[in-house]
């Protein structure tokens, strides 16, 4: 059994003259949460649509659980697209049952899974209501049920928390973690970097159709750390600025963010700090936030995308 649940090998997709996905290779480790990031129009949705068999790559190959991807595999994928919705006038229970049966569940299994999940997410009282009668948050939870209730080994969630209040975000997040703990591989796409940091084990960054980064999240943050340190102190802050060779990124009354020269490490900073009159409370290697890395890598068009609030 491969360590990777899903592999994309040099996958390319063209629309007209436009290269939507340009020779992308990704490896999604089995049983992990894999963050798929990128600004709008980068090729995330196109990649996901190829994984979910909605479209076919022009070139390259997709390996699903060790086999070349086939139409039958759709039953083993749960996909919550960013552009999603439900039949407005259909009852909640019929809706869930229908979508689960389209994933290959028998009527009986679909009903059982439905009841189980409606209870889990506290929607039992709403089963006979039409979708339009539900609040946006409840609709979102129903959508989540239709995505996961057939218990697929691969879940693809595109902005799964949009439209949810903090309480329901927590409920859904807990379910995602639980499914992951039970062995489900999850591809998670969002613009909310703090959610990525919180949930993901690995990330991939796509920009202009190309994969520009793929690694586990700690390695990525280490790789982009750039010798920056956070210092907490009491005393005259001007002493910090006087240390030779130190690049001061940020200087406040009680703390400072500094960069030390290339090739040096924490000892270099300590040596200099000992020679000051400052009382040092803390020295810490600063790992960059994902947001900063994202902006650094994708450039000017990124901040808008990164801050787009759902």
């Amino acid at each position, binding site marked *: 059994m491969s360590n990777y649940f899903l592999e994309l090998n040099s996958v390319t997709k063209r629309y007209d003259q436009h290269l939507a996905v340009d020779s992308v290779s990704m490896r999604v480790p089995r049983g992990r949460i894999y963050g798929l990031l990128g600004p709008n129009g980068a090729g995330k949705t196109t990649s996901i*649509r190829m994984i979910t068999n*909605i479209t076919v790559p022009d070139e390259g190959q997709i390996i699903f659980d060790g086999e070349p991807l086939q*139409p039958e595999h759709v*039953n083993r994928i749960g996909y919550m*697209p960013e*552009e999603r*919705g*439900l*039949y407005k006038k259909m009852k909640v229970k019929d809706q869930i049952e229908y979508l689960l049966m*389209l994933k290959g569940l028998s009527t009986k299994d679909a009903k059982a899974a439905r009841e189980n999940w409606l209870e889990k997410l506290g929607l039992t009282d709403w089963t006979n209501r039409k979708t339009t009668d539900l609040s946006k948050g409840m609709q979102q939870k129903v959508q989540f049920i239709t995505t996961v209730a057939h218990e697929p080994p691969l879940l693809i969630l595109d902005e799964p928390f949009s439209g949810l209040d903090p309480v329901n975000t927590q409920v859904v997040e807990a379910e995602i973690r639980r499914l992951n703990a039970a062995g489900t591989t999850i591809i998670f796409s969002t613009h909310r970097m703090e959610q990525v940091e919180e949930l993901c084990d690995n990330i991939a960054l796509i920009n202009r159709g190309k994969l520009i980064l793929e690694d586990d999240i700690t390695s990525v943050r280490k790789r982009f750390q750039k010798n920056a340190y956070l210092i907490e102190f009491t005393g005259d802050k001007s002493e910090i600025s006087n240390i030779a060779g130190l690049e001061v990124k940020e200087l406040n009354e009680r703390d400072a963010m500094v960069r030390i020269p290339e090739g040096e490490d924490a000892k270099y900073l300590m040596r200099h700090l000992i020679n000051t009159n400052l009382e040092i409370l803390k020295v810490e290697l600063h790992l960059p936030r994902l947001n900063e890395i994202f902006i650094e890598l994708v450039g000017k068009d990124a901040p808008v995308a990164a801050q787009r609030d759902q």
Partner: protein
Amino acid sequence: MNFDKLWIIIRREYLNIVQKKSFLLATFLVPLGILIFAVIEIASITMVEKEKYTVLLPQEKASIFQEKEYELTNTTDLTFQIVDQPLDSVKKRVQGNEGELWINPPQKNQIKEYDEGPLTITSTKTLSEGVKKEIRKQIGKRIRAFRQQKQGISDEQLKKLDFELNLTTTKIDKKTGEESKGFKYLTMIIGGIMGFAIYMLVAIYGQILMQSVIDEKSNRIVEVIVSSVKPFQLLLGKTVALISVAMTQMIIWGVLSVLIYMGVGLFFADQFDPDAIANAGVSVSEVQNKWQEVEMEVASFNWSVLLLMPIFFIGGFFLYGSLYAAVGSAVDNIQDAQQLVFPISLPLILSIFAGINILQNPNSTLSVVSSYIPFFSPMTMPVRIAATDVPWYEVVLSIIVLILGFLACIWVAAKVYRTGILMYGKKPKLKEIIKWVRTS
């Protein structure tokens, strides 16, 4: 193709429409409306105008009608009475009484001298046609009997004079010299109704399909669905479901029409006597002749034509329905669809004009040619079959061409559909849609 999933889609789409109030209303209220209309129509002929009158015949004007032999007979509504009063007082009496009227029939000398005579009826109220007819009929019958007797003609002799002309027209084929019955009213009516019904069903259900595709797209559910099934399966499932809905509706309407026909027949059986028809102002023999004609046509009508209707409807709906769905997939809302739908609606509407023309000239070039063009044949071929004799192989050929036609349309539509359902934003131009077909 995963047929389990196709079946699940068909079932949902079918139930979704069949359980809608609008479907139930259309399916049951339309025939009910027709029933009510028919009942009112028949009732207005047979049941209304039940006012009763006393018909006064002044002694001095009584003419032959005071003789026992030529006495006027009372009916349920009319009581005839010869009154021994001067004319002036009879006039006064009628003036003061709504239920009475007086008549002035032809006098004896007028009956002898002329072959026409005056009859005046005087009343305060406007009389119904039924009352006037009845009085006229009774007087006429007596005068005829009187004149027959005067001429010394026996009933037997009179019967020998009667002659009924039954008109039929026969059509001879230009090429084969084969003769067939000429004007087939019933077949023409059935052919016209069939062609028009197919047109209506294709147009209405095509629009429903288009709306349903637009709804799925604007609800954003479509991407969820196509991550489970192929877009083509969804398209096919929806199309087959709508065909099933239309067939359900046709079957219900068919059954209801037969029930209504029988029910109306039973209900009015006793009302449908010659008197009632005569009261309506139509001569009895005229009605009987027409009825016989209809009965003969019913007997000679090739009812298997009706079996072709579902075939041509299904073919036509696959063809037009898939194109309507393609348009629906390309747009985000119904307003944007109007412009794109025009090239589809145009041949559909033209087929109706062609159909009307074919009813009048069933053997014209237009008739023959249009019954082989898949965009027209679902509507025009049934009309042509009903209006004239079409060899079976021509029907088969027309159906084969139709099948090829709708397969081509589905092929094109599926390409547009699978690209269109995932495209949001600006309304695409026809040129772009053609590009989707070429590149996908």
